[in-house]
Every structure is written in structure tokens, then in C-alpha cells.
């Protein structure tokens, strides 16, 4: 088990990342809190020795994405996450920001992680494929399709 200091440091460092991943998958705050507890408890109890911060972050991203999927699939959870419910989370933001986030939320679920990790966290496709456990060609395909959809929705050129 990791010690308190280490864990609190990790929470401070990665809470925003976990929060953002929750935003693109989950529909309500209660679920987000659930995920925070699940992910950081796993962190506390995990015996993985992290080679560096990059490794640690990648591990947490993977655990978070999987935890979100598990929660949405679990019995104790309603089956559908509607777009409207996801969108209400962006209501407090400025119109420009909301527009972008809503565009992301309107993508099919499997594109959202890739888009977030590529455009915000600035991971390469190869790194993304390692983090989320998908074939790198799959990641390229998902990115290409996502770009097209985002382009249609937000206008302009999303290549690169």
C-alpha cells in the first residue's frame, strides 16, 4: 500500500486529468465521485512501481477509462447515457468552450478518449495505443474519423 503523502500528491497532480476523463464519459457528479474513489483506491493498493511520472500518468488514465466503462456497464447503473445529460455539465462555461466540449461529447464514446488524449494531453497515436490498449492502426482510424466529425461540427481544418 502506498503511503498517504504519495497518494495525496498523486491526487493533487492527476485529479484534473481524471476529472476531464470523467466528464467525457459520465453523466453526473455522483458517478464522477464514484470513479475518483475507485481509481485512487486502486492507486493506493496497487503494487506497480512507476518508472517515472509519465508511466504513472498513463497508468492512471488507463485505470480511469476502464473504470468509467465498468461503471456504465455495471448492474447498478442505468443503461443509457444521453447526450443531453452529458451536455448539462458544460452549461456553466463560455459559449466557445461549451461548443468545443459539446462537439467532443457528441462523438461516439470510443472516439472521445482518443480525441482528448491526442489534442489535449498531446500523446502520440502510438502512446495512446499503449495507454488504452488498442492497436495503433485502430487509433489512427479513430482519430481520422473523429477529425472528420469534429470538422463537420465545428468547421475548419482539424488535420494534425
Amino acid at each position, binding site marked *: *500500500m502506498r*503511503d*498517504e503523502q504519495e*497518494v*495525496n500528491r498523486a*491526487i*493533487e497532480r492527476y*485529479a*484534473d486529468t*481524471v*476529472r*476531464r476523463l470523467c*466528464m467525457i464519459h459520465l453523466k453526473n457528479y455522483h458517478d*464522477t*465521485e464514484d470513479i*475518483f*474513489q475507485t481509481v*485512487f*483506491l486502486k492507486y*493506493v493498493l496497487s503494487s506497480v512501481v512507476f518508472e517515472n511520472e509519465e508511466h504513472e500518468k498513463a497508468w492512471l488514465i488507463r485505470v480511469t477509462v476502464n473504470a468509467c466503462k465498468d461503471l456504465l*456497464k*455495471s*448492474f*447498478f*447503473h*442505468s*443503461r443509457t447515457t444521453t447526450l443531453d445529460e452529458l451536455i448539462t455539465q458544460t452549461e456553466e*462555461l*463560455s459559449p*466557445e*468552450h*461549451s461548443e*468545443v*466540449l459539446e462537439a467532443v461529447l457528441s462523438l461516439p464514446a470510443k472516439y472521445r478518449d482518443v480525441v*482528448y488524449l491526442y*489534442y*489535449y494531453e498531446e500523446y502520440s497515436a502510438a502512446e495512446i495505443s499503449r495507454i488504452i490498449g488498442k492497436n495503433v492502426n485502430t487509433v489512427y482510424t479513430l482519430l481520422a474519423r473523429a477529425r472528420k466529425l*469534429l470538422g463537420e461540427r*465545428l468547421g*475548419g*481544418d*482539424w*488535420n*494534425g
Partner: protein
Amino acid sequence: MDEHRNAFRESFEQIRADDALKERTKAYLSGKTNGYRHSLPRPYRRVALVACLVLLLLAGGGYSSFFTQTTTISVDVNPSVELGINRYDRVISVRAFNEDGNELLATKNIRFLDYREALRELLGAESMTAEDALVDITVFGTNDEKSDEILKNLENSTAHYDNVHCFIGSSEMVGDAHSHGMSCGKYQAFLELQELDPSVTPEEVQNLTMRQIRDRISELSGGAEDNTPAGSKKHETEHNNVQTSSTESTEGSGGNGKKHRYGGGHHGGHHDE
């Protein structure tokens, strides 16, 4: 292209974890790990807890109350199981009523767990989360207050899930249910179905899932007018007769036959109370 990326960055930048969330998470973790102290692994902790409880109760002469079952929770999806609950809200016995139930209990060790945790465990299993699954949770007991309390708690924890229905059941039918090899929850549903279709037998129902049973019930109750010409009038008459007699028998059975229906819009036309 860059302006898109920037817009993207800026937008996500607005999403932050608030301090309250972080603090609550820290508090949760601290609690969960006993203040980050190395403690016994979970299975042993439960055994230790039970050992302490048993000792305490033995010392206080209360051994029997720990192992006295006061309430039964019947969980029926396709797997059909009954959990015996004691007055301390702990699962003290488990019993399966079909193959799937056996398999479920074989993989989930829920003895001595608080019934809420036990249910959580059970309902996380694969056999319980099939696409269309309907879960019936029926609470029976000799103590009405306790049964109500348990029902309330279960309703609260399953409140925002659309395919769980919680009921209070009549403990008078326990004997009948078990003599047919069925859990109380399933037997109760069988009785409902039987009111609409007197020809149905326990054996037929035993092999159906709760979803199938409920679908049949709603078909028969909602669709009474749509029956084949030859049978429709007769069916309605029978339906009314059977319904009357079932109400009588429920009321005559000692006052514990109240049914409390939660959710389930698709079978709302029957047994309105």
C-alpha cells in the same frame, strides 16, 4: 488548425477537479485503509469480525440471536436466490433455487456481509447483468417494521436503476414456495401470473426469467381486449373472478399480504394500490 487545437486546450482547461472533490476522495481513502495502516486482508477481517461478534454474543448469551433469521431477501433475475438476514442486518444463510442461482452463490461469498453489500456483490455478477434483465427483490419477514426498513434501504440504493423492482412479500407463502422448489420472489410472481392464466403451473414458471414472467403478466393484463375472438369474453370474466378471489385470500391470510410495487411502468395496469 492551430486555433482549433488552442480552442480545444482552453476548453478542457476549464474542466477542473474542485478542492471539495479532492478532499472527499482523500478522506474516503483514509477511511478505507484505516488511516493508511497495514491491516488484515479483507477476507480475514470479515472472519475476525464475525469471531468477535460471536464471542461477544456467546459471552452475553446472545448466540442464538445472531443466527436467528428475521428476514428473507429473495433475489430473482434468472438466478433465483434467497438470503437469510438476521437482526443485525447480516446475511446468515444463502439458498439457491436453480442452476444459475447455484453458480452465482458458488462464485460470490456473501455470508456475514451486510445485506446491502451482499446485494451489491450479487448484482455485480455477469449472470445478473444480461441485456434485458429484470431484477425482482422481494423482502419477507416476521417483523413488519424491519421488512419495511430493509425495503426502504433497498429502494434507495436501487432508486435510479430502471430494471430493479423491490417488493414486500407475504411470509405466509414461504412454505408453499419452497415446497415447489421456488424462491419466494418467484413464487409471488407465479401467483400473479396464475391469477391471469389459471392454467400455468409452477414447473413452467420455474424455468422462466423474471423478465419473461413479467412480460407474460403485462401481456395478459394489458392486452386482455386483444385476445382471440373465441376466448376474449371468457378470459375477461375469468380474470375478474380470479382477481376477486385472490384479493379475498390475501386479506384473509393474516394481514401480512401487502404488496408494495416500485417502478415498472410496463406492468402498472395490474394490482393498482
